[in-house]
């Protein structure tokens, strides 16, 4: 395998591994904050002990999440050097803001939350617990602003003198911050975290009930977990809908790959599984219009007219214009110091095709097609599992609300099975979002083969296996410790 593939594998592995821990952090943060609020409001010590138990589980999960987060940040530089320069002007700002606004909040108040039970007042402790979760959520927003910009690069202009994408104006920053793709991704990711947290708490509570232990704690935890998870499920569906519409508008190839749609059109069908389709449903989901046009893979390769009447050129034409842009860029840079007048001509020519410059680095039109099978099935697993999980959370809410949990052994086992399923669901979502946008690091501007660092494939292969070994080791230890903590339980007396 070449350097690009190893660099992609290393980053994908780190991101996927990081994403194992983040959703539970986001979900548990909300659940334990609710429990501690009940403790402060009701002055019932039961809720303090319940919150302390989930905080303990949260802390075990939190450490590995932090450890993998720093690797991701550094890998932008170590493995994607050209990317760092090309978009550092746009991408670095949200990352720095994330550090200033969110990380310090998380770091400061996590310490108070974890160690401060007997050191600070009840209210200050409660505020710290909420602020830890709010910090994690703000962190998610800024990193998804950065990620959303990669999927839909708004507010930027290419500067041939510095050879990078730069912020077009001070106002352009607001375009980046309110990028609709970023906003959708934020709600989708955070609420999927609530869903994960909900499933986790329901399943662990179910395990206690299955074992006949910690009954009061388990029932009350299950109700809160189920309500948070169910709210998360509903919001995931809503934000998923807007993600689909945005994909149609900004990343039609991703949508076409997720649907395995070779030839699109109006009243496009939605594929449940290969060979089973719902007529017109894809047009409704993707454009909110039965007669909406959804381009397929071949349409995108050959060119088409979108729903607003814009003529989208074929990929071959984009590549030709991209290569012309690269030639004009080279000529401009060659002449700009000695022959500024001649250079100005090439600069003007560059402006005409600069939006396709990224296509100039592709070898053939088919390079813009991501791995269709992987994205197609990941999408189906994500949606199918999401519905199954929502059903489980709905049942948990009903059973816990009506106090009908006794003897529901089948349900407790179902809930336990849902723990691996919610993680598979989250990973599938990540695959749809990130594999679906290949070959672009920045949609339309910078393909992966131009974004890399100047390293040997062997060096990245070595660090890939090094990180793989470390991640595997941490995962095994984390699961062992977490299972140990769960087996020990909150140990709340139940008179």
């Amino acid at each position: 395998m070449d350097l690009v593939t190893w660099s992609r594998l290393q980053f994908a592995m780190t991101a996927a591994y990081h994403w194992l821990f983040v959703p539970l952090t986001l979900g548990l943060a909300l659940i334990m904050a609710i429990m501690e609020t009940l403790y402060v409001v009701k002055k019932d010590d039961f809720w303090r002990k319940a919150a302390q138990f989930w905080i303990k589980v949260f802390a075990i999960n939190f450490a590995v999440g932090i450890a993998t987060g720093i690797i991701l940040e550094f890998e932008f530089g170590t493995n994607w050097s050209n990317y760092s320069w090309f978009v550092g002007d746009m991408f670095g700002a949200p990352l720095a803001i994330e550090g200033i606004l969110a990380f310090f909040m998380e770091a400061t108040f996590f310490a108070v939350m974890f160690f401060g039970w007997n050191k600070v007042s009840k209210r200050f402790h409660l505020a710290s617990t909420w602020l830890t979760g709010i910090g994690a959520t703000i962190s998610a927003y800024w990193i998804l602003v950065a990620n959303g910009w990669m999927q839909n690069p708004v507010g930027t202009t290419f500067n041939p003198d510095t050879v990078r994408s730069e912020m077009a104006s001070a106002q352009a920053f607001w375009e980046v911050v309110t990028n609709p793709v970023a906003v959708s991704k934020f709600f989708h990711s955070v609420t999927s975290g609530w869903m994960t947290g909900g499933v986790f708490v329901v399943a662990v509570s179910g395990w206690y009930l299955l074992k006949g232990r910690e009954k009061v704690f388990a029932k009350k935890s299950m109700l809160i977990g189920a309500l948070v998870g169910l709210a998360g499920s509903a919001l995931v569906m809503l934000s998923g809908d807007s993600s689909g519409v945005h994909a149609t508008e900004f990343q039609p190839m991703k949508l076409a790959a997720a649907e395995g749609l070779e030839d699109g059109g109006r009243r496009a069908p939605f594929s449940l599984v290969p060979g089973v389709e719902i007529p017109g449903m894809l047009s409704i989901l993707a454009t909110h219009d039965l007669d909406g046009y959804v381009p397929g893979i071949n349409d995108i390769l050959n060119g088409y007219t979108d729903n607003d009447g814009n003529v989208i050129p074929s990929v071959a034409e984009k590549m030709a214009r991209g290569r012309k842009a690269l030639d004009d860029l080279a000529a401009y840079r060659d002449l700009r110091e000695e022959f500024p007048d001649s250079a100005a001509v090439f600069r003007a020519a560059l402006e005409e095709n600069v939006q396709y410059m990224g296509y100039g680095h592709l070898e053939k039109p088919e390079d813009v097609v991501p791995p269709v099978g992987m994205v197609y099935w990941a999408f189906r697993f994500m949606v199918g599992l999401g519905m199954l999980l929502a059903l489980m959370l709905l049942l948990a809410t009903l059973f816990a609300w009506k106090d009908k949990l006794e003897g529901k052994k089948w349900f407790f086992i179902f809930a336990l099975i849902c723990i691996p399923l919610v993680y598979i669901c989250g990973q599938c979502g990540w695959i749809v979002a990130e594999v679906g946008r290949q070959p672009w690091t920045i949609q339309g501007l910078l393909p992966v083969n131009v974004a890399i660092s100047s390293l040997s494939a062997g060096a990245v292969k070595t660090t890939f296996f090094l990180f793989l070994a470390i991640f595997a080791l941490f995962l095994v230890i984390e699961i062992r410790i977490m299972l140990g903590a769960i087996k020990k339980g909150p140990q709340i007396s139940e008179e």
Partner: protein
Amino acid sequence: MTYTFLQNYWWVLVSLLGGLLVALMFVQGANVQLINPRLDQMRKRMVLNASGRKWELTFTTLVTFGGAFFASFPLFYSTSFGGAYWVWVLLLITFVFQAVSYEFAYKKKNLLGSKFFRLALAANGVLAPFLVGTAVGTFFTGSDFYVNKDAIADASSPVISTWGSGWHGLEALGQGHAVLLGLTLVTLTTILGALYLIKAVDDHSFRKKMRKVVRIVAIPFLVLFLTWFAILLFKNGYAVEADGSVSIERSKYLQNFLQTPAVMFLVMAGVTLLVTGLHFGALTKSHRKGFWCAFAGTVLVVIAVFFLAGFNGTAYYPSNTHLQSSLTIRNSSSSYFTLKVMFWVSLIIPFVVAYIAYAWYKMDRHGITDREIEKTTHKY
């Protein structure tokens, strides 16, 4: 606000974050005590819990320092991180182990035993300051890289920044002056760690041992630091001409020192505070404020070091492979609008510092005792 003002402003902020990062590495320095044979298991647990309440601040400052460099000087980020690959990977690995070791060290079923994780923390305690110090040391010795922005138009070799040495950063270990700074940081953070433990742990005999650590390590620290600084002042530096070209200049850093009153003040104030901190820590029996003096002194001196590297017409990241590829504040920064937007965002920093200070104050009013470690369940 002019572009030049914003570029300088961000160099000041990066310098401040660098200063805070080095000072906050007292966490690493404290963890070196986890392999101190003169401490029993309980004292080691107290060390772990004392540094464990602050490690996330250091970690976060490292992440923010990286993020701020990425956002304000992206050409440094792309050139150094993508080039000095092994140094940064090694640093990452030590920090990754640190992050989990607190949580894992004393948990049952941690697979590797608590000693392994204590060793991982101590290894991070030595390697992290050493690698950071050596990496910053290359700001004055130069590195082997080449920057060619025309490369982006070359389909066969589009990478802008390429590294000249196949060692990808490890060659810095052969640069004596850079290594000297790495060793200086190891001794400095060990002192800061011991001073912090004197403040944070409420145990008379333990404090006595930590004062002895300060006394023992202070001498090599002063020798290393003064040697590094003396060599710096008289070595050749990398001057930026008015047209942006870079040239070698004799005693460039001495000139920077003498021509920049702010740097002179920062160095003198910083060293005075550091020495005061050392005095309180090493030569008094009950004084516990040495940490704050040494902390503030460290921040000031590191800021001065960054100022010496980047201001007064100096290339802060020189290239030995191709002198004109050297990075300066002017040629490596983000655009005007990005720096401007981030300027407004940076105004929130005093608020962040205020809530950190408040939380720190609330949490550290009473020192950690062995009784607390025995009784509480909320501990590492």
